[in-house]
């Protein structure tokens, strides 16, 4: 079974017997893993090993059979409103409308994901992302880097406790990667939990993290919890 650091910190996410299929191929079979609250589980593995499918299945976007899922020791159904109230999912797509301005996109996103309603919080995050000056511009006029930071702003405003991030660092420039790291670190510090599917793990100083390797032959048991430095080394070497 997956080792958890110690019972002191409340149990976060428990998944038992997850089974995911994509077309004919069985990607994940009988997968059990735990993600204690306030920690990060990095999901690594070659392309096509089911990283995206695992995250989308957890988010309830794709259908998957799972024997049991518990959040803070309370069993929960993947597609229920209670579960949706806990999670935020960031996929490969931008998730904003080009015809609307950055401010409008954020306002809509906040109502959708139950984020802070006050404009003050939103403008503060826009400042932090360096988008304050262009917040009234239509998104289609922003550069690729600015669009990426808008997506990060939406994530920064999320108050959900479980984050499912699918390749968040892909195609980010160096500055955006640091922003992403600080946002995720702040989320973990607040006691939040995150599952990040990625090829090059994000450098999260001080955050407790574990690793789940999805090989083409199905999931390997998650490595024991240990300091992030070892994880980064292990992740890079293992990726086939």
């Amino acid at each position: 079974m997956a080792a958890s650091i110690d019972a002191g910190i409340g149990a976060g996410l428990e998944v038992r017997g997850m089974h995911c299929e994509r077309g004919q191929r069985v990607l994940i079979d009988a997968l059990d893993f735990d993600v204690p609250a306030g920690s990060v589980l990095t999901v690594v593995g070659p392309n096509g090993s089911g990283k995206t499918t695992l995250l989308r299945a957890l988010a309830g976007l794709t259908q998957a059979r799972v024997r049991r899922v518990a959040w803070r020791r309370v069993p929960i159904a993947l597609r229920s409103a209670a579960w949706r109230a806990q999670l935020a999912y960031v996929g490969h797509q931008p998730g904003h409308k080009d015809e609307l301005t950055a401010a409008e996109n954020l306002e809509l996103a906040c109502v959708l994901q139950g984020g802070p309603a006050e404009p003050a919080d939103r403008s503060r995050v826009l400042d932090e992302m360096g988008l304050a000056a262009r917040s009234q511009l239509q998104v289609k006029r922003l550069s690729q880097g600015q669009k990426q930071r808008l997506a990060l702003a939406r994530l920064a405003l999320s108050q959900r406790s479980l984050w499912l991030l699918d390749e968040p660092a892909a195609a980010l420039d160096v500055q955006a990667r640091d922003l992403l790291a600080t946002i995720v670190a702040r989320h973990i510090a607040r006691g939040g939990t995150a599952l990040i599917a990625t090829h090059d793990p994000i450098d999260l100083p001080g955050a407790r993290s574990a690793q789940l390797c999805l090989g083409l032959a199905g999931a390997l048991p998650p490595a024991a919890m240990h300091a992030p430095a070892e994880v980064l080394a292990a992740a890079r070497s293992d990726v086939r």
Partner: protein
Amino acid sequence: MSADAVHAGAWAGLVWALRRDLRLAARSAAEVLVVLGFFFVAVTLFPLGVGPDPRVLRLIGAGVIWVCAMLACLMSLARLFAADFADGTLEQMLLSEMPFGAIVCGKIGAHWLTTGWPLMLCTPLVGVQFGLDVTEVGVLLLTLALGTPVLSLIGGIMAALTLGLRGTGALLALLLLPLYVPVLIFGVGAVDAYSAGLGIEGQLSILGAELIVALVGAPLAAAAAVRIAID
């Protein structure tokens, strides 16, 4: 989630989607005008094809206007989900706490306000082409008011089902037009009954019944269809 919290969530979802889609439609007003342009062109073709004889045009007027309204609605259905499906916002709606069915209801409402409603505003202009007098146009507007929401509601289901497919224009028409037949029959039936001096309560009540059934069933079916498309 207590019962009233669910109601609040549902209402908030509907209003959120309605305001959002109306703002998006306002930003790209061209799309709405294109649909109206199509409606005008399609309706004008019939007198050119059938001939200018006023007696004939009066007979077929209501039918032609109704069929062209259905086709115009069909044209604009792609706008309902396709853009949001492509840029990932539809996924975020699925993940919202607010019930997805309510959000879909709001989107379909916005689609009706940007297609059904403008079509009704143009109907008096087009009615003149077919020599319909003011009262007949009035009855026609009444049937369109009851009927065009049904076109958007059932259209929403099929638009969601054909998300992400290529060449959905003809497929949407093939899936939808058979299901539009009852609305067409009773919509035009009311106008014909009125012109023949008969009562129109029967036709309007049936149109109303169809609207209620569609209002209850369609958003849920469309929400399920979106889940199937995103799966």
